[in-house]
């Protein structure tokens, strides 16, 4: 099962390596990981996507909680939540394909943010599976470069992961 775990941690040097090190040391998977400061400069928020059965996920959350730099965490997959990821994809856009890619991008509600005679950069946000679909929709030989941020997530409703 795919789980999306949100972590509030001390904004300290080395905190990220503690999390990453834990995953390698204990043999857990990291699908994606994104981290940035929050409105409180002393805290970072990390969103981590991992895959494992119920027992593995239980161990992952317990082991993460045990890290001294981790202040609080929540497994967003346990409740209703919103997940977003941002992607920038550079594609070959020549002759007839220019129109086709523009149409595809519109259907996925992407934005073309860079244009040359031969290429576009499309910016797109959505959950990870939507971005996967867009990548699949573009003919493979047209893709020049794909950059994705990794997922970040937030729960629905007034409840929040704060201190």
């Amino acid at each position, binding site marked *: 099962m795919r789980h999306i775990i949100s972590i509030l*941690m*001390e904004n300290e*040097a*080395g905190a990220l*390596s*503690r999390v990453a*090190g834990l995953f390698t*040391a204990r043999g857990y998977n990291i699908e994606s990981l994104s981290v940035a400061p929050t409105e409180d400069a002393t805290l970072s928020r990390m969103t981590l996507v991992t895959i494992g059965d119920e*027992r593995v996920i*239980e*161990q992952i959350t*317990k*082991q993460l*909680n*045990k890290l*001294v*730099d*981790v*202040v609080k965490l929540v497994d967003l997959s346990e409740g209703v939540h919103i997940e977003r990821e941002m992607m920038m994809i550079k594609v070959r856009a020549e002759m007839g394909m220019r129109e086709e890619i523009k149409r595809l991008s519109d259907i996925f509600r992407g934005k073309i943010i860079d244009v040359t005679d031969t290429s576009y950069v499309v910016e797109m946000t959505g959950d990870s599976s939507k971005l996967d679909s867009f990548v699949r929709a573009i003919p493979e030989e047209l893709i020049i470069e794909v950059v994705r941020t990794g997922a970040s997530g937030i729960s629905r409703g007034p409840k929040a992961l704060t*201190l």
Partner: protein
Amino acid sequence: MELSGAQIVVQSLKDEGVEHVFGYPGGSVLHIYDAIFQQEDVRHVLVRHEQGATHAADGYARATGKPGVVLVTSGPGATNAVTGIATAYMDSIPMVVITGQVPSPLIGSDAFQEVDTIGITRPCVKHNFLVKRVEDLAETMKKAFHIANTGRPGPVVVDIPKDVTDPNIKVPYEYPSKVKMRSYSPVEKGHLGQIKKAVELMMGAKRPVIYSGGGVVIGDASAELTELVQKTGFPITNTLMGLGAYPGTDKQNIGMLGMHGTYEANMAMHETDVLVAIGARFDDRVTGKIAEFCPHAQIIHIDVDPASISKNVRIDIPIVGQVKSVLNDMLRILTEREMQADADALDAWWKQIESWRAVKCLEYPKSDEVIKPQFAVDTLHKVTDGGLYLTSDVGQHQMFAAQYYAFDKPRRWINSGGLGTMGFGLPAAMGVQMAHPDATVACITGEASILMCIQELATCKQYNLPLKIILLNNGYMGMVRQWQEMFYEGRYSHSYVDALPDFVELAESFGHVGMRIDKPGDLAAGFEEAFSRKDELVFIDVVVDPSENVYPMIEAGKGHHKMHLSPQQASERELA
């Protein structure tokens, strides 16, 4: 008061009540060593290798419950300390390790004796700190001791760049009396509802077993455990780390469990219907094959670390809290509700256990010719009346000591259970002796293990530590040889310790007393003489049977009921 960083390090140790620091000087910690030189409250013990410093601090912590303190320099000082840090981490021992670091401006430049200490130690510490500003030093020291010594204890590294300890830069000093960390708040009390459920399950049990581990020793809950066992009348088995938490000579103690546990303990584990795990972590050497572990049991698990619960074995009633506090709650509930165990069922259960005990799995052949290692430990127990602080290295001698030296008190059996670190015994014994100058402290070891930290004999001489070193010398890495005999058709690949020194002369060259015993008949008198030399370190080279193996034995990955007994007993017994 205005102090330099170096003075702050020493003053905060004083304020923390630290009496001994085990260390070795070097470039990055010279400012701190200069501050140590100028005071007398904190006593520095100079070891001969940084690994020795960590094991000594570890032994000190295990014997007292107070955090052990280590001071080493950057680079090789820190890397040499890593084995000892990992040893303490695996056994949850509180320790604060201060490492020097190259000056801040040089960090990352591959400077002389620079190593990424934070990175190297990260997977084997409870937490670590790099102190970048002298203003943060006192608070960091406080946090380090707080983290090391609360919750599930463990080692904490404080890495201090040399410029932070500069004697010319002074800042106001005040040692914080308390520390509060929003990201760290270990649990104290267990959930009462869970504890009640556990007590009810226990009182309904037909074939209960209490399985207790190192957490009871570390959590100072030996008295509470003993009361619970005696009040319920349940059988108790201890892990290697839990020996001494319940009196080893008491009838309700069915011995150690696991790979080299007793027949009765492992069979009871296999047949139990309610297992009460207390401060134990279901290590693979205890559980054997997980799929065949306690197949009939509902399991209660009391532990301070939530991550220990359901890590290896699925738990039915988890209780997260300090073992001492949870056991007190259990005892109170038992008394208040006047609950009684099922006496008839318990009676039948004990009869079953006695029939397993009658197998006498720890019997060994007697010999007048050659010293059996089991006989050596038996004799040691008799001569010392079971009263030793006994440290151990790793291998056959460790298992023989665990099996034949019954400990009646906690914090007396000091060994590297989790990491299995050869070389641990001698320096750990130094730490124990420093903590308890008047106690009789011995180290049981093998000729392979002792050579790994033999240089610490010089430390023992310098500080007049009258240890008794009992070397069970069989000329082999015994446990390696045993596995090669059993699983590799006797191909003894590199397990023979060729070109051994003369240990008597070796001990004497360090200024100690050396003795050799090679006849079973001389053993008791030899030990008596050695222990009568109260002020001298005596190194006793006991020449033992080179072919003896440790039994009973469960092969790695097998179930508890599939034990090998010694060849003298039923060659192999399998009860399903």
